[in-house]
């Protein structure tokens, strides 16, 4: 709920309006002041999340202002993805500070960021942006729970929307009324890795260690797990791997003895999983207790961020993973001019935390947004922006993205690069991601060969 809605509900608007009538204050200024007051009093994340939209909407909205909405998970289970977003938004704001010149006209750019609360508030955040803020463009990122509802709302309302960090199959087919006969979307566009990128990375990573090619898999009974079972399983089989699948388990399972016994009895030397993070830790502890230690432990969906791996202690050292961006990506952001290395070091300096792969993807969203607005010739015309997206080509920290060349008109697939978390005692951060293969993007330098987990 936005601060304004809250006030309306509380019957506070009458009071505010009366206040405004007697003074040379705009209604918005008063609301802002009240918002700031609540913020200071409460200091809670929820209230701050509601207030942040208000904080960024200060200033009058002239005809020459482009409004960009940004929806990402800042609180809730996916909040780890949202961690670098405030820093990335500050970079984008700096780049937009002097405005955008399009078709000879100069426009102010205003960014309105909203918290999806990891999905629970995603649809409402989108409708706030569309109906209350009248945004010209929506950007959204990080996990289907946030991105898909926002994309659906934008598609329904006819507002251009650019999204990332959801496997593109889950985004494209998952939102179709009939996934067997997909119809391209008119208003929503996406760049992200897909199942083929995972399969490719795994097929180049795993042969670096001699194994019996028997893969034990823990794919849960959720949107990601079932998509992976349907798509990745056959690809790995075709590449000569034997899949040992004990079956889909429910998220929130706290005991995995059945699966561990099966992996041990079938002698699985490779392990792959797409779990929610807390489930993996429970499983991995029990696997260690019961003596299941594969040569390669390939995890996805969890272990994306250093903090998740650090929390595992010594159990985290040597886990193999895949990343969608890293500081060694040899690309720069076209909007801000910031290189991948600078982006990582800048985030580390401003937050005091180790680099986080989401920073690259979030910044890429703003690169795409700026390029699409420029290419449209008329950024206030939503149809022109959507048309420009269809053939857009733009440089981002993730690499060069070109719409119209992907598997469908809406999607550009981006690479997954395989590697391994390795403990780095004595350096600034206790663990770092080492890149071991670059089959999806040969420009990303390989740092080392994969070493066995156990």
């Amino acid at each position, binding site marked *: 709920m936005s601060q304004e809605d809250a006030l309306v509900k509380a019957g506070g608007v009458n009071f505010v309006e009366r206040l405004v009538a007697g003074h040379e204050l705009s209604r918005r200024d008063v609301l802002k002041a009240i918002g700031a007051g609540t913020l200071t009093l409460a200091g809670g994340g929820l209230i*701050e999340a509601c207030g942040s939209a208000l904080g960024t909407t200060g200033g009058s909205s002239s005809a020459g202002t482009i409004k960009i909405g940004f929806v990402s998970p800042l609180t809730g289970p996916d909040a780890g993805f949202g*961690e670098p977003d405030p820093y990335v938004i500050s970079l984008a704001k700096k780049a937009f500070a002097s405005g955008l010149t399009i078709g000879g006209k100069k426009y102010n750019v205003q960014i309105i960021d909203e918290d999806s609360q990891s999905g629970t508030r995603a649809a409402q955040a989108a409708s706030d942006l569309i109906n209350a803020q009248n945004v010209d463009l929506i950007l959204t990122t990080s996990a289907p729970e946030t991105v898909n509802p926002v994309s659906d709302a934008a598609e329904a309302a006819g507002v251009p929307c650019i999204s990332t960090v959801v496997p593109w199959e889950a985004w494209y087919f998952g939102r179709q009324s009939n996934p067997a006969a997909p119809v391209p979307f008119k208003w929503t566009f996406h760049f992200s890795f897909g199942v083929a990128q995972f399969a490719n990375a795994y097929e180049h990573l795993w042969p670096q260690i001699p194994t019996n090619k028997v893969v034990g898999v823990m794919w849960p009974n959720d949107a990601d797990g079932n998509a992976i079972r349907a798509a990745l399983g056959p690809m790995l089989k075709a590449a000569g791997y034997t899949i040992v699948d004990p079956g889909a388990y*429910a998220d929130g*399972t*706290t005991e995995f*003895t*059945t*699966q561990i016994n099966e992996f041990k009895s079938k002698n699985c030397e490779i392990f792959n999983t797409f779990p929610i993070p*807390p489930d993996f830790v429970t499983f991995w*502890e029990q696997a260690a207790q019961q003596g299941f230690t594969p040569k390669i432990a390939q995890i996805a969906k969890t272990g994306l961020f250093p903090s998740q791996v650090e929390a595992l202690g010594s159990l985290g050292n040597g886990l193999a993973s895949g990343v969608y961006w890293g500081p060694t990506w040899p690309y720069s952001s076209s909007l801000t001019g910031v290189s991948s290395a600078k982006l990582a070091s800048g985030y580390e300096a401003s937050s005091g935390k180790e680099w986080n792969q989401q920073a690259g993807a979030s910044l890429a969203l703003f690169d795409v947004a700026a390029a699409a607005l420029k290419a449209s010739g008329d950024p206030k015309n939503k149809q022109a922006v959507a048309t420009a997206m269809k053939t857009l080509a733009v440089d981002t920290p993730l690499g060069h993205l070109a719409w119209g060349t992907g598997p469908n008109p809406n999607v550009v697939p981006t690479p997954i690069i395989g590697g391994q978390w390795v403990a780095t005692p004595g350096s600034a951060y206790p663990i770092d991601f080492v890149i071991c293969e670059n089959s999806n993007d040969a420009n990303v330098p390989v740092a080392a060969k994969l070493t066995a987990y156990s």
Partner: protein
Amino acid sequence: MNVLVQGVLLGGFYALLACGLSLMFGVMRIINLAHGDIAVIGAYLVWVLVNQTSMPPWLAALLVLPIMWVAGYVMYVLLLERSRRAGQLVPLLTTFGLAIVIENVLLQIFSPDDHSLLSSTGTLATSSISFGGLTISIFGMLTLATAVVVLIGLQFFLSRTTSGRQMRATAEDPDVAELVGINARAVYAKATAIAVAIAGLGGIFLAIRQTFNPSTGPTQLIFAFEAVVIGGFGSPWGTLLGGIVLGVAQVIGAQVNPQYFVLFGHLVFLAVLASPRGGLLSRRGRTV
């Protein structure tokens, strides 16, 4: 057989998480929806102590429990006392609000990063003993033993000490208890303090079992709540039994098909709810 043993060990963990919930309901008829989040506070406190002062986790736990005890006392006096007077539903809403506040305050202070006590407890979480096809986790046994010790302590406190008897009397009928000179408010505050301290203890075991972050609490609440209901509200031994029944049902479900793990637990929970008797060890007209 191995599966049953794992189910029992899992049940010990559920019981430990559920004790405080059960106590608060038994004494005050308050279902504490912030219970899971309070457990996570305990986990964070120990994590901070261990990381800031590099003291061993068991020492940190000993320091944290009295802090949680005091926090529980304050929580009763400041929040629950007032809302209790306003009827049955208000305390439920109060604890629901408290849960949201706790999650967001933790998020502000600690960021959404995952943490765990795994790295500071050495090999405790991963070592096990095995014989004849059975693998028994040392940490699982420690959890079960702790749950049993806590429940024995609770049972002893309630049946043998003056405060415990006062607590039972107040649970039966607060008005009559007041007539004979028991300060019901003090009794309730004490019960909340004990419940919060035990929740904190459960949180510490949680922090070794898995990673935690500010939004971990609610998922913990569900299983704890089910253990309490299955065992019968307000009965300490019922809580242990409820936890074990839930754990065993879940691992048997997983044996049938991995996706039935959560489902079988819920089915047992529903069956108990629907049965005329209520919880396994619930006694009509007498709680605690």
